[in-house]
């Protein structure tokens, strides 16, 4: 069935909508991405961009009354969206496993850490409790928990944050998944522990050959370990490329904003971090045209009417393709980015690029006309 070209996971035109009292929330609004075997995809976006919903939907965890899901999520030739719950359950925690953000709330507070991993093992393998426990101790050792034979009987509150996240990863690895989805795996951790967890994931990917989808708001996290990056905004992917290509030549103004809001050690010292003005848009009633235009410093009047498509950028073909959903001309974008890199403010960059002043640079995102 699966040819060499067939990726491990392929998401096609995924839509996820939630029925709420205030209206229909379009949490994911038509996204496509692929993850190859042993590859890492980083999905980056701010809170409410739909990145977590997309990840949860892969495992069928958003299935509920009042949720409408369409598109395809093909995992090794099977469309997960059309699988019945019973069959999906055999894949969950087995072939595809998930690591969650806040390990204190994601682990059951009333059960021992070991027991929770044993449960994960026994959910998919027909082994005795003793065998499952031996496997659990082995897993805890694998993720770097010291003295796993003793710590296996601890409760989650007796673990430190970093250890809990390691335990979470051990649980996800229990059945040697082919795909690991990590939702903000380092957000709740100290910077040093963050680096350890990322190094651990990197190591395990190499040892076990899993594909990894890492969902985060932190471009710095994926810059380190992802092969490809997809930037999400308001339920859509606005830019996607190989990590080096995206970092070297970002095309979307939102990606620029993300990059400019990361402190760097190499950059000019007194450089001020530039936050992106405004907040995430409403997903019930998203802005017209380009969803980012109310917050975009370079938006032109017609951007409020035209909805940009995700297109491959002109230039030499790349694998994977560098694609962006932006209405600015490619050469204008390049000029703007080089101006920004030279340390100029968005307004100065605009003038330098020969564009008229933008209509709105800040103010509430809902104030679109």
């Amino acid at each position: 069935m699966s040819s060499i070209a067939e990726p491990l996971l392929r998401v096609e035109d995924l839509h996820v909508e939630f029925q709420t009292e205030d209206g229909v929330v379009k949490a994911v609004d038509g996204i496509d991405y692929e993850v190859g075997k042993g590859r890492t995809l980083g999905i980056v976006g701010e809170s409410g961009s739909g990145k977590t919903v997309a990840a949860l939907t892969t495992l069928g965890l958003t299935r509920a009354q009042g949720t409408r899901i369409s598109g395809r999520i093909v995992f090794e030739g099977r469309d997960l969206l059309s699988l019945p719950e019973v069959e999906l359950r055999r894949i969950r925690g087995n072939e595809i496993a998930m690591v969650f953000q806040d390990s204190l709330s994601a682990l059951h507070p009333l059960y021992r850490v070991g027991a929770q991993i044993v449960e994960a093992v026994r959910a998919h393998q027909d082994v005795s409790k003793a065998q499952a426990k031996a496997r659990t101790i082995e897993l805890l050792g694998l993720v770097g928990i010291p003295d796993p034979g003793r710590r296996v009987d601890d409760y989650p509150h007796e673990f430190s944050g970093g250890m809990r996240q390691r335990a979470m990863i051990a649980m996800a690895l229990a059945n040697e998944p082919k795909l690991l989805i990590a939702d903000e795996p380092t957000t709740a951790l100290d910077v040093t522990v963050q680096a350890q967890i990322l190094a651990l994931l990197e190591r395990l990917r190499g040892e076990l050959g899993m594909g990894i989808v890492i969902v985060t708001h932190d471009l710095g996290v994926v810059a380190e370990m992802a092969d490809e990056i997809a930037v999400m905004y308001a339920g859509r992917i606005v830019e996607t490329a190989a990590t080096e290509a995206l970092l070297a030549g970002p095309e979307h103004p939102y990606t620029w904003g993300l990059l400019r809001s990361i402190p760097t050690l190499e950059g000019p010292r007194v450089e001020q971090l530039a936050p992106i003005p405004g907040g995430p848009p409403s997903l019930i009633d998203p802005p017209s045209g380009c969803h980012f235009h109310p917050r975009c410093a370079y938006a032109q009047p017609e951007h409020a009417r035209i909805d940009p498509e995700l297109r491959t950028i002109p230039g030499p073909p790349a694998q994977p393709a560098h694609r962006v959903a932006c209405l600015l001309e490619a050469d204008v974008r390049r000029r703007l980015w080089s101006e920004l890199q030279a340390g100029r403010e968005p307004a100065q960059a605009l003038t330098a690029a020969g564009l008229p002043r933008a209509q709105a640079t800040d103010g509430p995102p809902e104030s679109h006309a």
Partner: protein
Amino acid sequence: MTRYIIRRILWGILLLILVTALMFVLFRILPAGEPARLRAGRNASPKVIAELRLDLGLNKSLPAQFWIYMKEVLLHFNLGYSYYSSAPVCGLIAERLGATLSLMIGAAIIWVATGLPIGIISALRRRSKLDRASMGAALVLVSAPEYWLGLIALYLFAADIGKLKIFPGAGSYVGLTSDPWKWLTSLLLPWLVLAAGSAAIYARVMRGSLTEVMQEDYIRTARAKGLSERRVVLRHGVRSAINPILTILGLDIATLLGSAILVEVVFNIPGIGQLAYTAITHADFPIVQGTVLLGALFIVVANIVVDIAYAYLDPRVRYS
């Protein structure tokens, strides 16, 4: 933990002593009628009454009476003698404890066994017809006082006076040891009446608690492991949702004696409640004190048991 339990037990004993003292003072200060006069009958001469006062120890000063009473209670576990029948209070209570415990334990089993499943199903099927129906019924049952519910139940279902003669009526109680089958059937209606209100509360609390727990991140983790929904709900959801149930169970066991009094009176069951009720109407202080002390003992013990159960159920709770 052991030290904590010992300390709790010592405090419990102190509390019981204070309760005893309070009851003693309360019943002798409040105008409840002169026991000697009540016992002597309508046309008794002052001389007879004076003799009775002497017999019952009522001529001594209040502190002296209290001292004698406490000495008996603490040293001999003797709760005194009825002003009327002169029977020992301990004996009277022991005689009737079986009926009351039968009533309480049976009712508790029924309300837990009905309230919790209804609450769980309601939480999982929120806004379904079943949820609406059971929560509506719960509201009615919570609001209905036991004695009223008891009378209605007798009116509807009692074998003697009921519209549908299904259950044995009032005064049919038989001890468990003398005839288990009659014991069971005679208690069915009282159990249901006593359990109804609590079952309704438990269903509502369980519904609320489980609804909240099912939103927790660790429930999502459990699902992501590929566990069956049944296991997710029972092992992960209900396990956490049970804590508030434990809290109200502790409180309920304590106040249950009060509700049991009403049900015992309505169904004419010879239990502690009935004993207390008759004793109060006759100003039979030793019996009243004995039953109140028993009630206080219930509360203290129930609280200690619940606290220990908390530590057992939730590893994050550690008493020191």
